[in-house]
């Protein structure tokens, strides 16, 4: 009996000595001194011993219990003093309780970037209806009925005189009708054209810009757009202005930027030309000024427009415009 309790004690002390953490120490403590622990059981069993053996065994057992309690205490405090954190931890690799933001549609993100650049340059933001009268969408912009320039845009009609706007340019007219020059606005929004393939969707987004005042020149148009492209892409993205035609601007220009993929060496994205067409622009046609009652002798101005999808595709390397409107979670979460 005495031997046994001594053996228990020796074994327990050895285990206590080798304990490396508070948790394992606790486990050892439970094993020996817990409610069903070995020492506790031993003490309980004393009552079953012959009467004469009881006092001695009890004394011995209590002595050993004290030794062990002391040993637990000492070891615990030494474990604590060594490095208390090392033995008190949680699994930090587990994912936190969810608090993730959703995401803005890539078109919203790029529209905001575009608008931010222009508002920092002093432009205000204007909006207008998505369904327009023929007058605002065409006539006021110097595109009379039956003008061949109407073929440049495939129009969705609601009736003879009402269309889904084919560009955000009607907003130019609406703004100028309300405000006296100088005017500097950009107009973001949805536009509609009857066209559908890998680079066209029947609805897409444009940002239109307009700056009108005294002595606003074509050189200024180049300045503003160059500044914009350098901020939107980078300083190395050079620009090329090509003569073109829009009924509501003259002179008109297509603005190409150096291909952002191949830097001008020629690749699939730029059809080997090294250039990407991203903006249409020009000096506001005097006929448009006449339609809104501006004095063409004093006032000049420029307008420009760009497709947001096109710029977003270039910025993020997206190859199919239709992806924007499928709203596939796996696509949206990338932005």
């Amino acid at each position: 009996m005495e031997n046994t309790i001594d053996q228990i004690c020796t074994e327990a002390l050895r285990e206590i000595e080798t304990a490396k953490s508070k948790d394992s120490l606790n486990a050892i403590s439970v094993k020996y001194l817990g409610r069903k622990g070995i020492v506790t059981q031993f003490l309980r069993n004393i009552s079953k011993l012959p009467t004469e053996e009881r006092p001695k065994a009890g004394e011995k057992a209590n002595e050993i219990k004290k030794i062990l309690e002391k040993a637990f205490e000492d070891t615990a405090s030494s474990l604590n003093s060594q490095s208390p954190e090392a033995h008190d931890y949680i699994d930090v690799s587990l994912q936190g309780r969810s608090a993730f933001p959703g995401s803005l549609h890539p078109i919203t993100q790029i529209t905001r970037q575009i608008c931010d650049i222009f508002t920092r340059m002093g432009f205000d933001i204007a909006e207008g209806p998505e369904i327009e009268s023929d007058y605002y969408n065409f006539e006021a912009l110097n595109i009379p009925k039956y003008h061949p320039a109407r073929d440049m845009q495939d129009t969705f009609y609601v009736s003879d005189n009402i269309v889904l706007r084919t560009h955000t340019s009607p907003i130019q007219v609406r703004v100028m009708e309300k405000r006296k020059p100088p005017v500097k606005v950009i107009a973001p929004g949805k536009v509609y054209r009857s066209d559908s393939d890998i680079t066209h969707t029947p609805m897409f987004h444009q940002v239109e810009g307009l700056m009108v005042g005294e002595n606003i020149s074509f050189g200024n148009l180049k300045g503003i757009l160059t500044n914009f492209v350098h901020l939107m892409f980078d300083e190395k993205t050079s620009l090329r202005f090509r003569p073109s035609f829009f009924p509501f601007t003259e002179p008109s220009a297509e603005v190409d930027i150096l291909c952002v993929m191949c830097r001008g060496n020629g690749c699939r994205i730029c059809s080997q030309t090294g250039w990407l067409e991203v903006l249409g622009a020009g000096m506001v046609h005097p006929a448009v000024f006449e339609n809104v009652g501006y004095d063409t002798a004093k006032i000049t101005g420029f307008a420009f427009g760009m497709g947001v999808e096109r710029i977003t595709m270039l910025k993020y390397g997206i190859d199919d415009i239709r992806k924007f409107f499928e709203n596939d979670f796996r696509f949206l979460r990338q932005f």
Partner: protein
Amino acid sequence: MKVSLSWLKDYVNIEMDVQDLASALTMTGLEVESITNSFDYLDNVVVGRIVEISPHPNAEKLKICRVDTGNSIVQVVCGAPNIVENILAPLALPGTIFPDGSILQKCDIRGQVSEGMLCSERELELGDNKSGVMILSGTPETGTKISSALSLSDFVLEIGLTPNRSDCLSVIGIAREIAAIQKLKVEYPVRQQPDRNKDIQKYTSVRIEAPEHCPRYAAALVTDITVSESPFWLRKRLISIGQRPINNIVDITNFVMMECGQPLHAFDFNLLAENRIVVRTAEKGETFITLDQKERILDPEMLMICDGEKTVAIAGVMGGLNSEIANSTKRVLIESAYFNPLSIRKTSKKLGLSTEASYRFERGIDPLGTVNALVRAALLMTEIGNGKLTGGVIDENPLIHDVVPIELSISETGRLLGIEMDRENIKSCLESIEFDVENTDADTLKVTPPSFRVDITRSVDLMEEAARLYGYNNIPTTMPFIHAETIQPLKTLVLRDKIKNIMTDLSFMEAINYSFINESSCDQLRLLSNDKKRKLLHVLNPINEEQSVMRTSLIPGLLENMRRNLSQQVRNLKLFEIGNVFLSRGQDALPEEVEMAAGLWTGDRYNSVWYAKEIGCDFYDIKGIVEGLISGLNINNIRFTKMPFELCCYTKQGYTAQVTIEGRPIGLVGEIHPEVLRNFNLKQRAFIFELNCNTILDLTNKAKASQPLPKFPFTTRDITVIISKDIEAMSILEKLNSYGEKLIENTQLFDIFEGDPVPPGKKSVSVRIVYGSAEKTLEDNEVNGIHINITNRLLREFNASLSA
């Protein structure tokens, strides 16, 4: 517009390399979209050597040749009389597309396989000789492409012309631009004047009955014509730009149109009743069969070319079968007219018929070019068709075109462009494209554009011409000086941005859907017949049925997105969209555009995670989002009331709340109706909200005002009452707040319970009331007094009891 380099070189010397030429044209406004070789069709034709000739077992006139293609020997059946062993000849391999459009295939000729075709000059459109195969001289290696063996190369530029540049719808027009770029002059074909004698008047006449549609009509008469195939040079010109040769007469009219931009039409003179031309508008309902053998229905706005009895052509668009040039044609009347561009455009649009001629007329041809082109074509017919030109031409020009000089201010040009341009600079730019420029005074030029530049009508047009020829890239890049004043930002935009930010903060993803939907969406949504969402605006020319009406709700789009994502095994989805819906006021009026914000939550409350069970989201999840959104917008007094059953359509009855703010309904929140789920083919529950941003905007205009912070501690008391299950729990809080007790700082509902020990038909509701005062710390007995009063009042008014 396609032009070949060799054709261009007939009128202007081109020293530049084709790539440089293309980029120079692009930079002056004629965008070169592609450069191809006009001999590309010969890509599958190689030099072949006839190794062995043997008779064809089943045909006397045919022979079987074994031909060395350079890397193999193939069998070719050939009927040419001039073949002998060891000659070199062009061998077309299967896949070759001939200029007439036919495609060569490996085939069986009278029981013998033929794996290619030995070709004549004529068959390859390399010359007129069709008497036998083309025997190649010199020592080209077998297997080399015929185009390199013969050094065949002629680049074709495809130019994307803007609608204003009708003057460039001709080879000469483009040659003019090239001449200007190179500072050269165009060498025009010799322009011959028509005969002074007017013999033609003895044979025919032209009467213009609709001068506003037809300001000018010229005609010439060529007799004793032999209609036949065109000579090689003419065919080659047409083929090089993708036109198919027909016969010498038609080819000449096409050639002259391509050369100078004047569409011409050739009538078989013998088929013109009374041998005369009448230009008039059509009768209502008149029909006419055009050259493409289709019957056209005409209307009184369409201009017709008629003879003494009948219609023979739709003016400027297409001729008729009844006066077509045939092999038997002996006498030809050539028409060279100037038609009103608007008139031709309307006709072409109405008929849905666009031709090379109508394309040019509607954009505006040179009003002074009719007779030149006419004489050019007539003389070519005498040369090529052996015809005799009847003396003189008819030239009916009741409305004479005047080119009006335009004054151009040098200083204004500089001001618009942002560059100091001097007089000589502008002058040389404009003169290089044949504008006539005179000095008027120190700042002004008097400029007369050539008649073919119908797009030049005001001084800004001249400024553009000067700028493009000077080079846009030579204009310095500068920044504007403009007033700095600004205006208030758009409230709609500010609200929209805020909503988008809050929704993404609440972990929703933004979707953007098309603004058009399928008309059947209304039924799919179970909309009532008088629902204003049924006021649909129709698109007259939709791309398809799915996109035929403008949306009146954002929900169909979001449900469609849900369906798509489920099919991709994405089943937990939180999406929102902000966009306009369109409520029709009739097709002839602008619709009401209302900006809506909608959200959809489907799947689990949490994605599969270690800290939570997979529990499906429910009404209170989506409602919480709406509460969070509205609170983020700084709007108070939001109320959710049970939507009357009869007003629930796409949401489930009993699981739908109407959202109101200050008594104004702003939208709804609820669970999608199971039938709607089925209609959209969705197999799991979905919860949505849809709010009217225009109304929200009205409610956000309140200024924020700060409140002082409390100085004294609060005291809280809880109360649990048992009330009828039918009573909306939140009405207890509303009641509490309505008592106007000043010491109540806040109330919260923190528990709700049904079931044992609460009696059936009842529920227990626990409320925490926070008491506080701005003046002092409240004593317990003071609070207790108020609390007991309030409690009793509640019990009475809700017929409630305190919980045991």
